[in-house]
């Protein structure tokens, strides 16, 4: 039996993790397990005051359990790759591990009053997006599909928390995963 694992770094609110686990990962029709992850201070870049997503993926690849088909990590830390100012998340395309950052999904980040519903919606969409990459999906031209590329929260908000028919068809059938 292979599981979809979801794990959060220590600073993540358990409610947010539970939401990602129960709403996003349930879409894949495979049994989901939760695991604890250590902090990602090792990936901290003082010059940028951000955390490198590549060392995080490397750490996840090392600590993924043997029975993990995929492992999605959730963190509050703001992630980056060297060439970009930030990333909402990153995953190995067709690989086993991925990470989603919640930092830029909150309204507070943009100086707006908190909105739990908006935040949770964005978290689910980004979790679907990165997990889709782990299953080999690339960006979709359909702006409402969870696999469309979002480079700002407006674009995340335009998406639905679901895959378009074309992307859904490329995912493994439900029976194959359970």
């Amino acid at each position, binding site marked *: 039996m292979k599981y979809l694992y979801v794990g959060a770094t220590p600073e993540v609110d358990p409610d947010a993790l539970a939401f990602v686990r129960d709403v996003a990962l349930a879409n894949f029709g495979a049994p989901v397990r939760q695991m604890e992850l250590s902090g990602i201070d090792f990936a901290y870049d003082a010059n*940028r005051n951000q955390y*490198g*997503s*590549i060392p995080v993926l490397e750490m996840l690849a090392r600590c993924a359990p043997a029975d993990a088909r995929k492992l999605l990590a959730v963190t509050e830390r703001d992630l*980056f*790759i*060297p*060439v*970009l*100012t*930030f*990333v909402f998340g*990153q*995953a*190995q*395309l067709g690989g086993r591990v991925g990470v989603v950052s919640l930092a830029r999904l909150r309204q507070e980040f943009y100086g707006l009053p908190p909105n739990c519903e908006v935040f949770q919606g964005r978290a689910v969409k980004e979790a679907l997006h990165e997990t889709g*990459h782990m299953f080999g999906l*690339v*960006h979709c031209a359909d702006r409402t599909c969870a696999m469309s*590329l979002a*480079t*700002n929260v407006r674009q995340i908000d335009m998406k639905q928390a679901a895959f378009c028919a074309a992307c859904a068809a490329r995912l493994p059938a439900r029976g194959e995963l359970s």
Partner: protein
Amino acid sequence: MKTHWQILVVDDEEVMRESLAAWLREDGYLVDTAESGREAVEKATQKDYAIYFVDLKMPGGMDGIETMMQIRRKYADASIIIITAYATVDTAITAMKEGAQEYIVKPCNPEEISLLVSRIVKVKNLQRENSILRKKLSRQYRFQDIISKNARMHQILTLAHDIAGLRSTVLIQGESGTGKELIARAIHNSSDRAQKPFVAVSCAALAETLLESELFGHEKGAFTGAGERKIGKFELASGGTIFLDEIGDISPKLQVDLLRVLQERCFYRVGGQEEVRVDVRVIAATHVNLQQAVADGKFRDDLFYRLNVIEIRIPPLRERRDDIPLLARHFLERLAHELGKDVDEICEDGLKALMDYHWPGNVRELENAVERAMVTCHGRALTADDFAFLAQNGHTKSWTPPPGMNLQEMEKLAIIATLQRTGGNIKESAGILGVDRSTLYEKIKKYEIPR
């Protein structure tokens, strides 16, 4: 359209290089990496990269600007984006002067890179589409546009319609001017490839070496005069249909190359080492009897069988005379509009002149005849007088021997045709051919003509 374009990321810093490559791969592009300018230039010769991301500062004596210049010298249409950690006006100006498409400062906003790449790809797609559109005739034919009430033609159209959705190779045989390309286009436009290119190539028009580079493209410097890399018709037709007209005229070497494309679905550009894979439906056409060419050893039998998966034989116009009035009226109507001439009818005697003519040039000749008659006529209806030039044509039109045929082969064909026309009557045939009966018997024996 994305996966069509390949990107090369050039940076000496591994984490920089690999993270950008991974990010672009998530966007659906095929991405390669190079850790030095030298490696980038080397890789550029092996693959067609549409976009290069090149880091400005690289060690080893070859920085980003130098790398860009070397790549652009060979591939002028490559789009190069220079990346740098330090934005100075000077370097930006130098980069742009040397032909960089864009200049980005890292770290860069993801939105900026995403827009940049999609803008370049949009332009590349448009350029590609434009070059295809320019190269193909702008006419889009469908089966409904083919005019015929002839039963044999209807059978052919039904067959062509039925096989349109398949990927199988089609061989269309028919005399010049019978509308082989029209049928090929109709097949293409009824298939699921209709939105993809239809590329027509006349194999008879070009010399062997030119045809080879026309079909498969060539690399820069592959031969004298090959100043730039050229994409061949097979690549231009990618995802669509290639129409190889006058296939019977291609050289033995090209026959081998073509066989390979049909079997393996891949080829090499002239002077190239990179295997190019294509998904192209092949429709071939010929006015010569390919089966005969195979029997005579002039056309490879394995290629013939590969091409002849579905065979369509279009009858010459003289064998479907019932279509002549229909087609003539169709051309009259269309040309009246195009020429701005107030002619709307063909008289009885005019029609009789058309029916009596033997139409060696088939439908194309009929179209030209109607146009010529309309240009010179004075009334509102075309008369026999307006078609008087046809009678002259019949006598004065110079006869040309079928290509690639020697005197003996022509003699053999002349005897076969005469015997068929006389129903195998030796006396009558000998009379028509102007030889005595014993000579005719000798020749029948010599050429092993079945009776």
